[in-house]
């Protein structure tokens, strides 16, 4: 099997380089100006966060609709480090680590009580947590003035460029893939399918729910940290529950239990929103929200299993050395 595995890795490497070169060529030829570069970067950042929600909801079945809260916690924690330490590469990496770990820590503390709730009740509790975080961020300047509070936070060094974000997206995809196809990930998937049956074969659901929750939220924290170093202005409304809906929409529209779906929809979603602005022109730009809403409804009505419906494409989620492909999660729930 070694040869097959090697070809798979080779294909993956070629794919990654091809995407990277394509973006660079588009930039060099001027087809992609700095505006669209920004849109692309935002799409990649949202994709990293959505991969986290994909682990929590798509693979473990924990209905969480407060995902933007961890996105915001990561962004503010990293932004604080960036503002105090500076924007060099070591400081940047430190800030990313702090943002990610802070989100993970809060996810653990919140998960301890909250993950006992099931289905919609968990959803409402996480939604509530999202609103609490928004209110805290709105008032944070009373405790730490440099975080800005309701007027927003500025002055974070803009270290994250396309290369960094692209690299971290690749790392996140690999991490999620390895998690999903590991023993832990399989335990999570079986909890999604039937929690009681899973616990009756000796798997402790609480442990795995917590594991995927903390991992998923820390990816949101990483995405937030990258966001803080890519966009010069942080504001609490960027991290309110409407943003949580965006993560949820990306994960569900991509297809629950499909990392490929999450990646493709995550990037496509960012381009759709900005592309509509471009296509509609100045005269009809007001219709953007209406058309987006209609597209959303139509996608859900036409593809009720999501765009990818639990399937994976080998290039994005390589099935290296795996034989169990046929058992890939079906994306029910």
């Amino acid at each position, binding site marked *: 099997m070694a040869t097959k595995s090697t070809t798979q890795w080779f294909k993956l490497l070629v794919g990654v380089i091809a995407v990277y070169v394509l973006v660079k060529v588009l930039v060099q030829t001027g087809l992609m100006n700095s505006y669209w570069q920004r849109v692309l970067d935002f799409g990649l950042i949202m994709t990293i966060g959505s991969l986290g929600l994909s682990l929590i909801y798509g693979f473990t079945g924990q209905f969480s609709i407060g995902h933007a809260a961890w996105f915001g916690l990561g962004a503010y924690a990293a932004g604080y480090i960036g503002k105090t330490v500076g924007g060099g590469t070591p400081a940047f990496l430190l800030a990313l680590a702090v943002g990610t770990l802070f989100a993970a820590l809060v996810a653990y503390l919140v998960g301890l009580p909250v993950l*006992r709730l099931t289905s919609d009740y968990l959803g409402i509790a996480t939604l509530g947590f999202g609103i609490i975080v928004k209110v805290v961020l709105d008032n944070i300047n009373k405790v730490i003035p440099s975080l800005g509070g309701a007027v927003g936070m500025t002055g974070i060094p803009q270290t994250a460029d396309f290369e960094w974000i692209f690299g971290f997206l690749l790392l996140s995809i690999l991490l999620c893939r390895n998690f999903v196809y590991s023993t832990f990930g399989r335990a999570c998937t079986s909890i999604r399918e039937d929690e009681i049956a899973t616990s009756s074969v000796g798997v402790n659901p609480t442990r795995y729910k917590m594991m995927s929750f903390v991992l998923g939220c820390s990816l949101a924290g990483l995405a937030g940290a990258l966001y803080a170093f890519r966009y010069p202005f942080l504001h609490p409304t960027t991290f309110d529950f409407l943003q949580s*809906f965006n993560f949820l929409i990306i994960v*569900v529209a991509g297809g629950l239990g499909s990392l490929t779906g999450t990646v493709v929809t995550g990037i496509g979603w960012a381009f759709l929103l900005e592309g509509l602005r471009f296509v509609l022109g100045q005269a009809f730009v007001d219709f953007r*929200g209406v058309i987006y809403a209609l597209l959303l409804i139509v996608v859900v009505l036409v593809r009720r299993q999501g765009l990818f419906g639990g399937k994976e494409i080998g290039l994005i989620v390589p099935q290296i050395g795996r034989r169990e492909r046929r058992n890939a999660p079906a994306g029910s729930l």
Partner: protein
Amino acid sequence: MDYFLNQVINGLQLGLVYALIALGYTMVYGIVKLINFAHGDVFMVGAFVGYFGFAHWGLPLPVAILFSMLTCAILGVVIERLAYRPLRYAPRIMALISAIGVSFFLEYFCSLRFVFGPDYRVVERPIQTVTWHLGGVTVTNLQLIIMVTVAAMLIFLQYVVFRTRVGAAMRTVSYDHDAARLMGVDVDRTISITFALGSAMAALGGVLYAIAYPQIQPFMGIMPGLKAFTAAVLGGIGLIPGAVLGALIMGQVETMTAAYISSQLRDAIVFVILIVVLLVRPCGILGRTEPEKV
């Protein structure tokens, strides 16, 4: 003390308006297990139609309210027909995303220039405000109107659900769609009636809200909708008395926080209480936990 009692009355006013929205959430959730995120926007449409009725078309207030309720009842049925019914046997999350889509659609469509426009509008009160002083406590005629209307609606709803054939059908469908169909209940019709009733309540709530807090705009439904839904969860979703109890608690907590602590922390404290209650009683205050079936 007088200040405190006045705050209690203010909280009651807010809570009763929330109750009207929460009733629609709880009925819809009870019958199709769907968090109808578009409900807050139906409330917004209700507020706008009512406002146009009494402020621009010169309708008397009760007629404007009835017209608004009728419009929203139709709107609710149409939404259910187009966006939720095709997904009734799909995974539940798809109907939820569809509901979010409908919510966005109503918000953005209504903020188009040729519909309601994106701006805030100030609502001129259609009735003269009369204030009574009862030993230091101030009550306005508006607060009285809200209390009486909501109480009447509650009694009406309890009557419909527990004393009429439609109500019996609703209870049967909420218990089990397939069994209800076998018993000869028209499930689609019952669900439509539930949406019509719930949306009419939301419209009533919208008009009262617009009169009590006289400013309206196309995105006004988001927060009241979210809070009303939270109220329904707090009281035990699917239960009509639970929705009212939850809404009254929310109204009091919100008013008291604004009065005694800080109006900015209002939302945070409301949701902290929600989470704490859910941890102690996972199905809400009046809800009963069913044993999980294997």
